[in-house]
């Protein structure tokens, strides 16, 4: 089983501390979503894991090997997209992938089959022999994903992989990520601004703020929120549905926090049975609530 261990890592840029004594253990295959506002330290953490920068203090171990001291061994089973990578403009996608595959230890024959495999997943097979200098942003991002997936890495580090893409490009990348995630043979660390991406793809969510981890939980254990607006609330109150509903709008709106697996219709049915006249119901993810609570608190 693959593992990534971040042990007491800090990163300073002059007087600015981008990451403050972060410790984190990732040792279960699946997707880990890292959320946070700009400047939270997400990209810094991604760059540290992939040896693009080195920690000021602490260490990062991939499968037990220190990334800074022994990158050749530690990064052999890591694939990554950090920020918006560019490729050597005079090389084709095929040559780019062959280079990465060979550096990661693949033989020529193995690399040929690997290129075929990842090209299919990421749908780059249509432009394999074109020089990357002629690619659009979306094509480069798909190639970056293909490069990240080559040689079946144990750990895939993705820093905002859909950033700057049009809706079609975003959907293509997400579909590819979904296919990879379903295979469940790697740890995917996904840093993003988009809560919807984490909800759709990840099993664990980490929220970062001001260089620290402020929340870390399985997405399944995060409750969802149900916002119910009434024409008329139930006469006997709301406490039977949820212990602590949050009231807004002079009692005409109630926000219920319930477990993800509870079907919405059960709650609505119960309210209606007790005489409530419901205007509308809106479900939002608990991750969103958590995230907004943390970011909102900081802004306040």
């Amino acid at each position, binding site marked *: 089983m693959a593992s990534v261990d971040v042990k007491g890592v800090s990163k300073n840029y002059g007087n600015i501390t981008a990451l403050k004594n972060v410790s984190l253990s990732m040792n279960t295959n699946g997707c880990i979503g890292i959320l946070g506002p700009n400047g939270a330290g997400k990209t810094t953490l991604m*760059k540290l894991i*992939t040896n693009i920068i080195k920690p000021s203090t602490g260490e990062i171990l991939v499968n037990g090997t220190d990334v800074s001291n022994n990158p*050749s*061994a530690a990064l052999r089973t890591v694939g990554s997209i950090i920020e918006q990578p*560019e490729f*050597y403009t*005079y*090389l084709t996608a095929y040559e780019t992938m062959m280079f990465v595959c060979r550096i990661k230890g693949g033989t020529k024959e193995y690399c040929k089959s690997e290129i075929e495999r990842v090209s299919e997943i990421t749908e780059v097979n249509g432009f394999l022999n074109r020089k990357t200098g002629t690619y659009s942003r979306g094509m480069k991002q798909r190639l970056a994903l293909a*490069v990240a997936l080559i040689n079946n890495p144990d750990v895939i580090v993705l820093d905002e992989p859909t950033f700057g893409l049009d809706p079609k490009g975003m959907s293509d990348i997400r579909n590819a990520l979904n296919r990879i995630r379903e295979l469940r043979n790697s740890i995917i660390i996904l840093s993003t601004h988009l809560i919807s991406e984490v909800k759709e793809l990840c099993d664990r969510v980490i929220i970062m703020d001001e260089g620290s981890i402020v929340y870390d939980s399985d997405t399944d254990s995060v409750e969802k929120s149900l916002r119910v607006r009434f024409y008329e609330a139930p006469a006997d109150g709301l406490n039977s549905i949820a212990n602590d509903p949050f009231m807004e709008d002079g009692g005409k709106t109630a926000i219920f926090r319930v477990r993800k697996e509870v079907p919405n219709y059960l709650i609505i049915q119960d309210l209606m049975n007790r005489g409530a006249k419901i205007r509308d119901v809106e479900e939002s993810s608990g991750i969103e609530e958590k995230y907004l609570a943390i970011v909102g608190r900081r802004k306040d």
Partner: protein
Amino acid sequence: MVQETGKFGIVVSQYFRNYYRSRSFYLMLVISLLISGLMTYFSLKYVGNLHITFGGVSFNSLSSSLKERAVLYLWAFVLSYLPVFSAVFFGSPAISSEIENKTAYHIFPLPIRRSTLLFGKLTAAVAVSYIIVSVYTIFELISYLILFGSFPSIVFLYSYLLLLLFIISITAFTFLVSSIFNKNMYAYITVFLLYYLIFNALYIILDFLYNYNAFFLLSESASIIERVFIDINTTVPGSTSISLNGAGNGPIGIAAMVMVIYAVISIAGALILFDRKEVK
């Protein structure tokens, strides 16, 4: 598993491919072909009627062996500028472009030592530069063959090998400058300023004020490429150091040593800086 030496070969072929397909390579090739063409034209048309003098002796009065060396000297004199331009094109942006063009995000996370990446890229840059100067050298050999009916002496080979050493040292030097900066333009400007302004200024100051030959400057040691044929020092206008013999083993050894020292120090410096390079 591919060992670090195997990875070196993969890196060299990758960068070599990227270099020889680049616009810079074709531009340098065109420059090399133009200069080669001009030199061939003038060699074949005018070599019997040259009015230039070598140490007060007119070209036509030179002995046939000296005439042969004089022709090779003129070709090599022009040739020694090509590696500088080539190194500026391929070496100056070598490291800075990885940051400026964001290709660092692609190569830094790879399981390979930065030293292997640097040596691989340096080898590829030296190889393409050598191809460019070799085009010129082929023209030189053909012209020589037509003019004198035989191939040049072993001294020509010395000059060609010293040229390789110069290409290695000037390219390593540009890699060092490139590893200091994150912007290509700064690296280009710094290399030009250092090589053509600072080095020349230092040479003139030391020569004119202290009558001291700044043999330790890379630009000065590069002149050995032509001085192996006739030891005329043309770095400074009006310089009085003239000999119609080729430079002996002593000057060749010193120049070679200077170039090796530049190469070693530059590579060591570039390695240290590149290893610490971060993309913020």
